[in-house]
């Protein structure tokens, strides 16, 4: 990614890829779960189908992932949370192994033992966790390592606005600021922590205002826009890379699906998602690209087709990969 146009195009393509991925997953996830095994009262069986277990999709939140990761290198670390696909894709985690992991296949990133909230790709320095708020301290550790190794690597901690009320948020921000660690904290404010609205969980309107409590810059990106994120993140990441310390960014973004697949979303005002989707950030960036002559219908169709194939291939790879042998369950508690 040399020029800005390259990056813009990369952001667009990656957003399309994330969206395609999430929409594909939303469909595949339902396979085998509906109609469920005959059992009284059962409407949906979370443990069934090719992708069992919880599933948190990030459609709508693509700008956060691409706007930040457009600035990153392989050696930079990203720590995500329970809703990790957009970050993983933007960080370059290979789709095949990532998808296979979510199918529980031996070809997966973690040989099937991690699952969708536990994607580890050391080659692309990506990790995540199902525990809300757990990632920020770990990102501090990656940043500390960079500093100790004399590298100009940065670390990104992504988390939700709900996570920003966890004690770990506070501890990590204080540590990062105190030790001037090359870490950027990126809070995705998608308005909800499961069913709880931000106003019912957070004493102030923007987490960016919490940065002052650590003597670090706080930046609010108040629209779900890849370019806006790109700019804010660029400044912060450069700052971190120069050794000038951490930044806290909050981005207002939108969650198009339920908290997890199967979420009845009764807490959500009717029509909210429809309204949000009218401000879809992907066509918005597409329009910018078109204005700049970087995109037209033909190129768009072409890249979408390529992405569809790539995503399809990943799901095929996952589907056709074998499950691990049960002996695998007893391996890797410890490295040998």
């Amino acid at each position, binding site marked *: 990614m040399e020029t800005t146009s390259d990056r813009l195009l990369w952001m667009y393509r990656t957003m399309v890829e994330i969206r395609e991925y999430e929409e594909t997953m939303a469909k595949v996830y339902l396979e085998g779960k509906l109609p*469920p*095994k005959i*059992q*009284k*009262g*059962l*409407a*949906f*069986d*979370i*443990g*069934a189908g090719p992708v*069992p*277990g*919880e599933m948190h999709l990030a459609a709508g939140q693509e700008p956060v992932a691409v706007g930040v990761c457009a600035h990153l290198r392989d050696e930079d670390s990203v720590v995500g949370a329970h809703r990790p696909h957009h970050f993983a894709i933007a960080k370059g985690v290979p789709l095949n192994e990532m998808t296979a*992991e979510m199918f*529980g*296949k*031996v070809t*997966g990133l*973690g*040989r*099937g*033992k*991690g*699952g*969708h*909230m*536990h994607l580890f790709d050391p080659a692309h320095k990506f990790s995540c*966790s*199902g*525990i*809300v*708020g757990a990632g920020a301290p770990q990102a501090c550790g990656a940043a500390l390592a960079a500093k100790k190794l004399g590298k100009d690597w940065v670390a990104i901690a992504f988390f939700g606005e*709900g*996570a920003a*009320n*966890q*004690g*770990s948020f506070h501890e990590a921000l204080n540590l990062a600021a105190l030790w001037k660690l090359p870490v950027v904290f990126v809070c995705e404010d998608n308005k909800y*922590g*499961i*069913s*709880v609205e931000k106003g*019912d*969980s*957070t004493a102030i309107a923007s987490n960016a205002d919490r940065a002052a409590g650590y003597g670090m810059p706080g930046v609010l990106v108040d629209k779900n826009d890849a370019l806006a994120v790109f700019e804010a993140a660029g400044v912060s990441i450069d700052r971190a890379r120069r050794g000038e310390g951490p930044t806290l960014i909050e981005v207002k973004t939108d969650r198009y699906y339920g908290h997890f697949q*199967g979420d009845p979303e*009764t*807490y959500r005002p009717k029509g909210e998602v429809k309204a949000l989707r009218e401000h879809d950030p992907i066509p918005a960036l597409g329009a910018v690209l078109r204005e700049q002559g970087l995109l037209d219908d033909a190129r768009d169709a072409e890249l979408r087709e390529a992405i569809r194939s790539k995503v399809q291939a990943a799901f095929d790879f996952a589907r056709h990969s074998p*499950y*691990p042998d*049960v002996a*695998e*369950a*007893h391996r890797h*508690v410890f490295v040998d």
Partner: protein
Amino acid sequence: MTTQQKTRTLTMAQAISEAIGQEMERDERVFVMGEDVGKYGGIFSATTGLYERFGKERIMDTPISETAFMGAAIGAAAEGLRPIAELMFVDFFGVCFDQIYNHLAKNTYMAGGNIKLPAVVMTGIGGGYNDAAQHSQCLYASFAHMPGMKVVVPSNAYDAKGLMIQAIRDDNPVVYCYHKGIMGLSWMSYFEGSTNEVPEEAYAIPFGKARVVREGSDVTIVTLSQMVQKAVLAADTLAEEGISAEIIDLRTIVPLDTETVLASVAKTGRLLVADEDYLHFGLSGEIAALVAEHLDTIRLKAPVRRLAVDAVPIPFSRPLEQHVIPQVDGIVAAVKAQLATPIGL
């Protein structure tokens, strides 16, 4: 319970929320705090319908701040209120365990009995539906290991209601663990034996009384929570082969009904502990040790056996997960192996 009582079949989730609702009506001091306990009705439906009935002052959604609201439960309980704090998944206890085990569980003791903390920590446990290593644990033994908390682990709706009412009325901290796979949720396959007849009116089941689910003569299966339902299915299979298993549902592990366990093992001469928690340094060891401490009065016919999650995190992949969590056929196999391993004289 007299036979005149009106009963209905309820899921365990319904039984729990009914119990909480009845106690909230009886006692104004009872209230609920937790993540998504309000409008959502609890991720595992333990508080369904309560927000609508009691409003947001008594069914309080919290920020994702387990330390803050567990601490708040302590402070409120010390003032005479009776909080129920839901820890959505027991797996999350690591972010707030200090408040629970160093304070909620110890303050009464350190105060020489001068304060009481009538708080219930209610939490979802267990795996089997592929929620992986951070959302599938049982961990009840980690609470039971620490002094100062009662630990309740129901296996069915009837017990769940009576034990929840007892938990709320108890003047001490109670950790109430419901297994997700027996709540009777509409989105998770469950063991149907857990959905059973529940009286409409409030009733309390005393703590420390195990239930003999099924009498038998060849082996005692000591178990709890969802595993009770698996043990029942295993016993059915064993019975077909002429093996008679006695099943003991512990129901509470603090207090632990040692008498019922010892009497049963004395009778059958064989102990199998079937547990979904981690194998080592935990519940199954405690039950085995209990018997080992009484070998002057108990004559074993076979070595003790333990079935539990053997020193691995819960793997995500479905075949691996089903392999590491003890299943019905594993119980059957363990009993048969036990019968084939006599203690030599």
